[in-house]
């Protein structure tokens, strides 16, 4: 038993080291791009990116956590689906539909008192996000439609539907944004206002971070427990690894595909709720025909976190940190588009170099298997 624990720990450490290694490669790549685009300011720019959220003190770090919150959720969404053998590209659609549901309830259901109001809004976001993933889940399980195709389609349907519904119900036409939610629907600060602020004369310049980050961390822990400690997680992962053997063992693999997708969708939907239930100073839904970046960034977050829920917390914070650093690059002579490119390169290169790293042992294993089966082929049956 103790031995087993040591082994798991050893594995975890290995994984963390390989993630850090990937991040370093990503940063090096980002530096190269900085050099190409603006050689004179490259070193200064790189330092600003590295300083990330710290550039503006306590408030800056608070913003890092605020923007990490939805990334943790979409990362969990992608990572959880991935662990169960599904590739959920639809986090963007699930996220924006969840966001709409949460803001709608936040604006309209003013009859609810404070804690119930934001709780109801989060729950509604989970439901709608789950519903948005239910459709691809059903199509995958019963019609064998690949979830990558159907979730991408659902992304666009979700984006246009959310835009339309916002314009119909909760649109602030002066700002072209969704309306402010009622104060009772705003997530409480959860003690974070004592930490993440910049002194401003006699007052405080508060960060928008709130207890959403706590909720995200708790959900990550819950997902970790479900995946690793429950028979439900055992079944889900079994289906992801080998659906034939799962069927052979009597696991209802169709039901599990649908459930996996719904849970993934609910997570992404809650991500939308946690980002937008942040009061007047926080984010509002912009009514534009662009897919939510939080949804797509869930993919590199999950990759960098190796789909491990705990790893995803850290990879989301890292990506949010780098993104914040990018925002401060504007103080130098960098065009916003170039900044986006640099940051995107760092993020995606980190994730992909890691993906590549995790492929190498597989290649080794594959070639080993091949050579083994070449020897094994001797016997009457052979393999395959």
């Amino acid at each position, binding site marked *: *038993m103790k*031995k*087993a624990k040591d*082994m798991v720990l050893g594995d975890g450490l290995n994984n963390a080291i390989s993630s850090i290694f990937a991040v370093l490669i990503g940063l090096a790549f980002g530096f190269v791009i900085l050099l190409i685009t603006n050689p004179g300011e490259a070193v200064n720019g790189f330092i600003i990116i590295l300083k990330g959220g710290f550039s503006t003190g306590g408030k800056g770090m608070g913003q890092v956590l605020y923007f990490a919150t939805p990334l943790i959720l979409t990362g969990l969404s992608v990572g959880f689906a991935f662990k169960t053998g599904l590739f959920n590209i639809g986090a963007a659609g699930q996220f924006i539909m969840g966001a709409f549901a949460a803001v709608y309830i936040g604006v309209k259901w003013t009859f609810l008192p404070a804690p119930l109001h934001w709780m109801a809004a989060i729950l509604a976001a989970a439901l709608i996000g789950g519903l948005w993933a239910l459709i691809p889940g059903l199509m995958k399980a019963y019609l064998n439609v690949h979830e990558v195709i159907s979730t991408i389609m659902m992304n666009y349907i979700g984006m246009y539907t959310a835009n339309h519904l916002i314009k119909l119900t909760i649109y602030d036409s002066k700002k072209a944004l969704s309306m402010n939610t009622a104060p009772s629907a705003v997530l409480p600060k959860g003690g974070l206002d004592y930490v993440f602020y910049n002194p401003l004369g006699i007052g405080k310049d508060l960060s928008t971070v709130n207890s959403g980050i706590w909720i995200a961390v708790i959900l990550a822990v819950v997902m970790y427990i479900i995946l690793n*400690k*429950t*028979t*439900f997680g*055992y*079944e889900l*992962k*079994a289906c992801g*690894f*080998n659906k*034939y*053997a*799962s*069927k*052979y*063992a*009597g*696991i*209802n693999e169709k039901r599990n595909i649908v459930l996996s997708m719904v849970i993934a969708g609910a997570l992404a939907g809650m991500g939308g709720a946690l980002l937008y239930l942040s009061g007047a100073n926080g984010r509002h839904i912009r009514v534009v025909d662009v897919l939510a970046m939080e949804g797509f960034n869930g993919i590199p977050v999950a990759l960098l976190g190796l789909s491990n829920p705990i790893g995803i917390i850290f990879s989301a914070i890292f990506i949010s940190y780098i993104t914040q650093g990018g925002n401060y690059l504007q103080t130098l002579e960098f065009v916003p588009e170039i900044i986006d490119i640099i940051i995107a390169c760092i993020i995606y290169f980190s994730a992909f170099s890691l993906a590549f790293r995790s492929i190498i042992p597989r290649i*080794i*294993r594959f*070639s*080993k298997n091949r*050579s*083994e089966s*070449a*020897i*094994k*082929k*001797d*016997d*009457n*049956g*052979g*393999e395959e």
Partner: protein
Amino acid sequence: MEYIIEMLNITKEFPGIIANDDITLQLRKGEIHALLGENGAGKSTLMSVLFGMYQPEKGIIKKNGKEVKLKDPNDANNLGIGMVHQHFKLVHNFTVLQNIILGVETTKNGFLKMDDAREKVVAISKQYGLMVNPDALIEDITVGMQQRVEILKMLYRENEILIFDEPTAVLTPQEIDELMKIMKDLAEEGKSILFITHKLNEIKQAADRCTVLRKGKYIGTIDVKTTSKEEMSEMMVGRKVDFTTDKKPATPGETVLQVRDLTVAAKGHGNKAVKNVSFDVKRGEIVCIAGIDGNGQSELVYALTGLVGIDNGKISINDKNITNLNVRQRNVSGLAHIPEDRQKDGLILDYSMSQNLILKKYFTPQFENRGFIKFDEINEFSEDLVKKFDIRSGQGINTSIRSMSGGNQQKVIIAREIDVDPEILIAVQPTRGLDVGAIEYIHNQLISIRDEGKAILLISLELDEVMNISDRILVIYEGEIVANVKPEEVTIQELGLYMAGSKRSEVAV
């Protein structure tokens, strides 16, 4: 005596394993030379080296005394080396003729000259007595015929050295006899033949000399006529092997599995893979379904275990109708299943050994408490099974099942399936791809649970296995049961006739 091909001191390593360790093989012109060894002895690797698919780390290959280098199979072909693979390399919707000339087509100005090719093929098949219809589609002809096409392919390319990789695995006893005769004729005509096998009878029947490999090492080359089967098997395995399995006569009790009028559709087309099959399996007996691969065995098993739906019929266990139950409900009703493809159906390769051991039981109160897994119980349970079934692995119960050997993977499945204390155990080719030691072990396990009063349905393609351990044999041909016989009342030849569909008896349940 001069050698046509010499492989001298060949060493081929793969990461973590030496597949061939200083092996020498010398093939005389016009002889049939058998290459004997267990699974994993390195026979296929050695042949792959000769065929140019692998480059050896050490050693040289000589043809007619001159050293040659083989970088790819084309080099082998140019040197006149041809191979009949265990799984034929034929294009199924092409004709025999098209398959034979594939890759060496005679053309004129870019157009095929089929007439010349046809003449040559007909001439060759006359010369060697390999009669085939050149215009028949591969998918329409028997496996034995397909093998002839493979042989014709080699002859058409004017190969002098012919390698046969486990050629008899897919044939009926009658077809095997024919193949032996063809091989002898070819040798007589001056062709040199390398014959890979682990079946001693066939070596005795056809080969002149035999080279034995064991665990990647060269054990020796012997003259077949002066060496007994026992001596050869001892060289192959490294110890004395008992060929007959000790087994008391069966004492069948009441019926456990009852199948009536079972009809199952074939995958992908309208034909029925299993047609109106009825049989019983009783407590304390091993019933074996014998037949050539692809005669409906897989579909029958899938239908019995609930993995595919059925068209018609009734299945019951201990008089309980399970026809409409799902897989889990059938398992709980007392059905255990050792699947044909252990890596695809039987194991989750990304899980550890203990996670695989609980695959059929994780949801029971023994291992589950309000949805949570009881890890301590699982570890205890797994350690227990590892001891009981002598499962060997690198890191104990947490070993990744992927890294374990085939024999030990199979032991994990057998341990799991026997542990659920089934009413009926369906074992599909349980010894496939395993070495002699593991086969002995599995046979003894099956017999011992039979003696405990379990019912066993064994599906096997190996006639030796069928004759050795079954108490009753059902022969399946094109989805129908064509014979229901006792092993002591039937000869292998007779079984072969049933399996080939040329004989059938009225089968009463």
